């Protein structure tokens, strides 16, 4: 069954790059929603039927960590799986994200195979 995904990143270019990577991975995606920061992401989650979230960490207004923290307070959406998109910033931030409920992370650059490996079980 097609799954709807929410992409959260302050760069619209990055969101397009990730969309392309998801399509290349051949996973069965339905709608691809987008948000520019944690705040917008929460608004989308409250409104739209999102099955999986992919989120950057560094964003203005509300970053990836703050987004995870706030999401835990929202009963309707707190269980939607979230994966972080990380760069070389290191494992401690990912550790913190996981302690706030993130399921896993995709470290850039990631291959379509890697996307399949990490997201496949949730599709």
């Amino acid at each position, binding site marked *: 069954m097609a799954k709807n995904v929410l992409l959260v990143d302050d760069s619209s270019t*990055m969101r*397009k*790059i990730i969309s*392309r990577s998801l*399509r*290349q991975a051949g996973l069965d995606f339905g709608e691809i929603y987008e948000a520019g920061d944690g705040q917008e992401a929460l608004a989308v989650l409250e409104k739209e039927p999102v099955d999986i979230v992919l989120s950057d960490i560094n964003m203005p207004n509300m970053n990836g960590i703050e987004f995870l923290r706030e999401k835990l307070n929202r009963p309707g959406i707190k269980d939607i799986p979230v994966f972080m998109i990380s760069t*070389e910033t290191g494992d401690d931030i990912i550790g913190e994200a996981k302690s706030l409920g993130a399921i896993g992370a995709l470290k850039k*650059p990631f*291959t379509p195979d890697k996307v399949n490996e990490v997201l496949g079980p949730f599709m």
Partner: protein
Amino acid sequence: MEVEKYLIDATLEVFTSMVFIDIAAESPTEESMLEIQPNLSSLIGFAGDLKGILAIHCPAAVAMGITASMLGMEVVELGEDVKDAIGEIANMVAGGLKVGLATEGKKIELAIPTTVVGKSIHTSGLSGATRVMIPFSIPLGRFGIELRFIHS
């Protein structure tokens, strides 16, 4: 220290995972990047056990072609998408260099990517640093990865 290998590995990894374009590394060279005739250069500095700067130099057509493939859409000008995409490539290649250096116990931290777009742009660094220049070919043309560094 295997800087050239780390740069080549990182660039090939970025291209095969996220750019989806055939790419081949050429031999590291002394040639100045002017041979590449760049219209766009993305630079990212780093500091730590090594201090330096990594740059990607692309002619317009190559930058646009790379961006079009990364985004899966048509690109007709050197706009924000191109600067962001090539800037992101610089960031990821520098990240790969960081991982490579870590295997030798050398630690670096990255700054942020900046992009310069223009007609006949020249980039240079302080003379006295070690310089590595590696051209790459893709079907659309060539681009260069240039690294300058000193040991801290």
